[in-house]
């Protein structure tokens, strides 16, 4: 596929240019790691004063946190630069991408590929490892199988949110922060148990923007916890379908956004 090939070539170029300044790469990766670790420090500080949050003890909250962080981190690593699209629309540099013989989506996704974002994935993976070490789970084959499936599906769902957010920026060019509310806000939300939030909010992130399928639903199955909104047990196995559905909708949104693009003419 031409898109994948273009994506691979452009990311490889950005990795090479990143590696030209190794000290800077190490520093920014560490910074990325530390910035995301701060969220978990907040959770640890909370648990220094309480034993449970929304009925979930620390290892289970860490489990939710790890799943959400790794899924989001993978999406962020792959296409996290898409929130810069608004700037390209504003200053007209998107034109350069339009005349190249490769799909625009692949070019925008790979643009300024930030390898430093491995910091977030690493941080999430460490918390997930800690959670798996301490949490009490009756492992079965289905639960084991569900683990990689939900990480990949979760990354797919977050990826769809990134693409849809970028599509929105064709219309509202200055609104990258609105996109952050769904991406960074979404992963923050999922780091806490669903029991913490109001029913309306849980309903919204299950049926409208289906973030609950990233970790809340599959994790409820793995942890043997009651399902949010009393959903049936099979809902825990639907994340791949939800991810594909979200991806298709985001793709449509992207096409619609790209069609509205009018160059600045400068």
């Amino acid at each position, binding site marked *: 596929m031409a898109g994948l090939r273009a994506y691979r070539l452009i990311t490889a170029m950005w990795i090479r240019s990143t590696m030209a300044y190794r000290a800077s790469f190490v520093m*920014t990766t560490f910074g990325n790691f530390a910035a995301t670790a701060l969220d978990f420090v907040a959770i640890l*500080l909370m648990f220094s004063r309480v034993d*449970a*949050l929304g009925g979930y003890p620390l290892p289970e909250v860490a489990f939710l946190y790890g799943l959400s962080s790794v899924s989001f981190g993978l999406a962020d690593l792959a296409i996290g630069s898409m929130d810069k699209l608004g700037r390209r629309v504003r200053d007209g540099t998107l034109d350069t991408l339009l005349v190249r013989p490769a799909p625009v989506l692949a070019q925008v996704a790979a643009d300024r590929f930030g390898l430093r974002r491995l910091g977030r994935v690493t941080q999430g993976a460490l918390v997930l490892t800690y959670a798996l070490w301490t949490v009490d789970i009756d492992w079965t084959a289905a639960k084991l199988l569900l683990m990689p499936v939900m990480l990949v599906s979760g990354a797919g769902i977050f990826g769809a949110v990134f693409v849809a957010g970028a599509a929105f920026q064709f219309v509202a060019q200055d*609104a990258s*922060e609105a996109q952050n*509310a769904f991406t960074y806000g979404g992963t923050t939300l999922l780091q806490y148990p669903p029991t913490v939030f109001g029913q309306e909010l849980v309903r919204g992130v299950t049926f409208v923007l289906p973030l609950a399928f990233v970790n809340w639903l599959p994790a409820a199955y793995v942890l043997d916890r009651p399902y949010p909104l009393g959903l049936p047990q099979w809902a825990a196995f639907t994340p791949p379908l939800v991810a594909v559905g979200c991806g298709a909708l985001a793709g449509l949104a992207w096409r619609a956004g790209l069609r509205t693009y009018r160059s600045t003419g400068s």
Partner: protein
Amino acid sequence: MGAGRLYGAVAAGAFRRYATYRAATAAGVFANTVFGLILVYTYLALWDERPRLGGYDQAQAVTYVWLGQALLAAAAIGGGGFEDELMERIRTGDVAIDLYRPADLQLWWLASDLGRAGFQLLGRGVVPFAFGAVFFEVALPSEPLRWAAFLVAVGLGVVVGFGIRYLVALSAFWLIDGTGVVQMSWLAGFFCSGMLLPLNVFPGELGEVVRALPWSSLLQAPADVLLGTADPLPTFAFQAAWAVALLALGRLVQSAATRRVVVQGG
């Protein structure tokens, strides 16, 4: 007085400049509201578990969340003030032109940052705060005097924030690339200002240390004045002492830095 008029005009210019980014402001308001919503639910779960944690009741904890969202941009706790621009001018050497101007470098940027903060407080702070006050049970004082004291504490907090960020920006004279310093300062600001969690919830000695640092002036101090958990006068004295110390240190570093300026030929 000529100088007063000059810096007043600089502040007004900065206010107007930020006021032109309407879509960005709307997106920021939306993001602050979403993050406030997520935080409020986690705080409610925390205070459900431990009522009167840190000396706050639930309504006070909820008010604290919305104050944080209202002050985040104004006090530039998450960055986004003048420092990127000044660092860029130092890196490119444009700062040499600024030094020849018949205006004081530090006062110029302070005036500009105050104008920015004024707009951010009105443009980005009021709406999320009003949203929180309408949809959640909050603890707001009815005496106008307490509100006035709160605004004084906010103003002092913004000056302290400027003092810290001015030092961060000046580091570019020595480092050329200040990305690492900016990131570390952002992390320290988030952690030590009370943005992550109210400082009175921090356990034991850690709590006492963070409360004595300058960052507590940015959010914790104004919040405690408004919530009535701290006396205004000692709070002002604490903030003013840090403001004076940081501004004086900024002058010292500035004079050391400007002696290093070598104007590149061309």
